[in-house]
């Protein structure tokens, strides 16, 4: 269906090619997962399938890409539109119409399909993706998961044989992600669509993949194979695979179900051994850094938060979880005074955050927003660091020194837009930490982060907490929460439904339990690292 023959791609102005001598055959009806570090060329590979690279981006392509027999070198993306459907990373950015139904029809209108065919296909697609109730809704009013499904539907109506998706689940809560993946699987099984997708959250998708393509980056050759073959020694792997490697299971399980079947002996080995308790280390100031007391926040006549009471103290890492739209971001925004309260009291650093003005704010609390790029506005990393020192009124060089600790590979002259997602996050974190606020808030920090960067972030967060910072992070990433959090708060419809030590909250929840916990239940283990420590501790002791 798709074949890459000795493909190399070089962007204009670049000295080295992004992809070197790629040879790849993707048969019809497969679900292919493209993995690799951020900036390794995954997106380039995806965009080459429908000719956006190089027709749209510029650059040179050598070798040949055949898509269902058509050469992308002579067919620009618009001529391949009936064959390849592309869903961009941020679905909102690709919407043309303003209402769901019209968006679904747009591609067909461009292809010039007959009106009765269009009508029928729109209805079929609405059913297939469960969008019937949304058909008359403005696109701006949809939630992230709904937008993702509309974006998939919008390309599906043209009946493409190939569907290309760039990180379709990274912005979604676990439930919405499962909906999207279920829809994709249905397409592969029932309609024989070939799906090619890039995704960092391997723990969500790897079990659905027939084939995995690893793009290592830095000119290393691209390799592909069946999912279990590739996971055996891939540098990045979801917890279920890592646990399998640790325990030496063969064949390597990719699903929770397979892993549970193999995990009997491991469970027995761990029985009776106490799972490590997460204690808050470091010096502790018992006074809360921020507190909410019967807090209610409204947008118009809709309640975003109802009667929320909680406190965050120093040394804690609290994970705030819940569906898209449950009120997580609102709680963070209220704690830094971006949003006014309707009832109840919020105190950050002992004051009403709305009253804290200007540079005083950055010294009490720092928020890294959902899109860390929002905080950045200079044209070089060095310029960004200088203006940060100025904003926080600290000694020149403070931010640069912090950044050197967090992300030593980032160079001064780089434009912040050219940094990878993870590097941008760490730069924003360095800016926020420059004023050394005791309270640190992070909104969805792992969106678009690869495993190595995530591991690094987890380490940084633990060190900050040990140094006395209090951290509250809103996240959909159950694995991150399991790894770092000392406490978990679950929000639903603006109310706190659970608030307690990580193990207590996540172990019992089907949605928020990490993979290791699901495999080893009823034993109470959260991460591969904990299990490894327990086993090797046994061996040495």
């Amino acid at each position: 269906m798709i074949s890459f023959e000795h493909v190399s791609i070089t962007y204009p102005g670049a000295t080295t090619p992004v992809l070197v001598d790629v040879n790849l055959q993707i048969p019809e009806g497969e679900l292919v997962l493209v993995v690799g570090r951020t900036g390794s060329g995954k997106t380039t590979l995806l965009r080459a399938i429908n000719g956006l690279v190089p027709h749209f981006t510029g650059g040179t392509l050598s070798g040949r890409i055949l898509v269902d027999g058509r050469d992308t070198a002579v067919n620009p993306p618009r001529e391949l539109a009936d064959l390849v459907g592309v869903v961009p990373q941020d679905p909102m950015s690709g919407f043309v119409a303003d209402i769901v139904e019209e968006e679904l029809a747009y591609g067909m209108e461009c292809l010039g399909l007959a009106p009765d065919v269009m009508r029928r296909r729109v209805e079929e697609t609405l059913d297939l993706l469960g969008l019937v109730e949304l058909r008359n809704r403005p696109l701006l009013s949809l939630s992230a998961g709904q937008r993702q499904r509309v974006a998939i539907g919008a390309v599906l109506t043209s009946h493409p044989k190939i569907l290309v998706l760039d990180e379709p689940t990274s912005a979604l809560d676990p439930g919405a992600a499962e909906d999207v993946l279920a829809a994709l699987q249905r397409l592969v099984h029932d309609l024989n669509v070939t799906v090619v997708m890039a995704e960092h959250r391997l723990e969500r998708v790897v079990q659905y993949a027939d084939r995995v393509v690893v793009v290592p980056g830095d000119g290393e050759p691209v390799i592909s194979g069946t999912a279990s073959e590739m996971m055996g020694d891939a540098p990045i792997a979801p917890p279920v695979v890592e646990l399998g490697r640790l325990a030496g299971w063969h064949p390597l399980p990719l699903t929770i179900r397979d892993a549970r079947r193999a995990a009997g002996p491991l469970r027995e080995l761990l029985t009776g051994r106490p799972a490590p308790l997460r204690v808050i280390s470091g010096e502790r100031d018992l006074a809360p850094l921020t507190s909410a007391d019967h807090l209610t926040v409204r947008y118009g006549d809709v309640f975003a938060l109802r009667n929320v009471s909680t406190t965050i103290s120093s040394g804690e890492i609290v994970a705030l979880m819940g569906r898209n739209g449950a009120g997580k971001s609102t709680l963070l925004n209220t704690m830094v005074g971006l949003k006014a309260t309707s009832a109840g009291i919020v105190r950050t650093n002992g004051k009403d955050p709305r009253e804290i003005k200007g540079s005083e704010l950055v010294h009490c609390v720092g928020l890294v927003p959902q899109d860390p790029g929002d905080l950045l506005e200079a044209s070089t990393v060095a310029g960004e660091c200088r203006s940060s020192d100025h904003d926080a009124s600290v000694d020149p060089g403070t931010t640069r020194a912090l950044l050197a600790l967090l992300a030593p590979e980032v160079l001064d002259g780089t434009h912040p837009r050219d940094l990878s997602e993870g590097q941008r996050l760490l730069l924003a974190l360095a800016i926020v930490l420059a004023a050394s606020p005791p309270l640190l808030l992070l909104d969805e920090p792992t969106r678009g982060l690869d495993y190595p960067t995530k591991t690094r972030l987890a380490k940084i967060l633990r060190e900050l907490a040990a140094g006395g910072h209090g951290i509250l992070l809103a996240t959909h990433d159950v694995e991150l929460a399991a790894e770092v959090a000392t406490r978990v708060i679950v929000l639903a419809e603006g109310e706190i439904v659970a608030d307690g030590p990580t193990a207590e909250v996540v172990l019992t929840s089907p949605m928020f339990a990490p993979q290791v916990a699901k495999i080893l239940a009823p034993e109470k283990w959260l991460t591969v690292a904990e299990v490894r420590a327990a086993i090797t501790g046994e061996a040495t002791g």
Partner: protein
Amino acid sequence: MIGSLHVIPRWLHPAAWWIWALGLAAAASRTTNPLLLLLIISVAALVVTARKPDAPWGRSFMFFLRLGVAVIVIRVLVQVVFGAAFGTTVLLPLPGVTLPSWLAGVRLGGDITFESLLMAFYDGLRLATILICVGAANSLASPSRLLKSVPAALYEFGVSVVVAMTFTPQLVIDVDRVRTARRLRGRPTTGIRAIAGSAMPVFEGALEKSVTLAAAMDSRGYGRRGALSAKKRRTNSALLLLGLVAACIGAYALIAAGSPVALGLPMLILGVSICLVSITLSARAAVRTRYRPDPWALPENLVAGAGVLVAMSFASAAWLLISGLDTPSNPPTWPALPLLPLAGLMIAATPAITAPPLPQPTLASARRNEIEVAA
């Protein structure tokens, strides 16, 4: 049996709403009678309340009302500062400045008379009414649905306008995001420096989004080769533009007071026929098809007809020299209510009933999700 025709909820053809609103606006342009103008505004408000959709563009009517008030205020202020005073009822005696001879005709300050203020108020009210009529059309007809009805020859133009309009709400969100970021970095969020500081990131963001959108549209087949050669397509578009210009000149000549009707009608007919030729030519070779095009049926005829009738009633009242269209401000007189325009206005209000009701999206869930956008 009209009742049974609009039982099925559907969107009215946006062009019908625009014809109706422009008819009202044309009527407003013919009069300075404050009673008639206020009646026109009430008719527009009545129909908007009855048939406006619960969508972002549906809420723009309030904005136009406020804009109208601002226009009146500005018009009166301009009169106070620059206008030549006339009339005898001096409200506030003020010294005037005589400007040098090269600025002859411009006057600063001077006495403020009741008559001149009244004249300025009528004038401002007329302009405000025209604006409010446009606002009514804006909130009744989805802008993108109107553009869907744009003929294939103007399709490229239509898409760029749709994209521009989806970006406006997006821009508001962006401005908000940048303000947030400024607060988080401990910078001032108000004042000129704050605005200057946020402009760059907002525009950079908008530019980046346009590029992404262009890529997305290209991958979905926008601009596929059609059966028509590029040269022929360009000829067609040029022909259509020419026709539209001619039609506009014709329509203007027909509506504007004091221009010859003899020029208006032939120009209008010529323009419309050129447009029709171009549209049929490009429709024959169009690759694109249209999903669920809005039908033009009886309700559309009734709504557009109401607009045409109200414009005609005002125009013929002017032509028949029926008194009451103009209200003299010097000396001030109580405005009359002429019957013919009044009858026209009653017809103009009928779309509140004759237009079909709208299909309702699930409102509760739409509201709930607005929070996410806001957050």
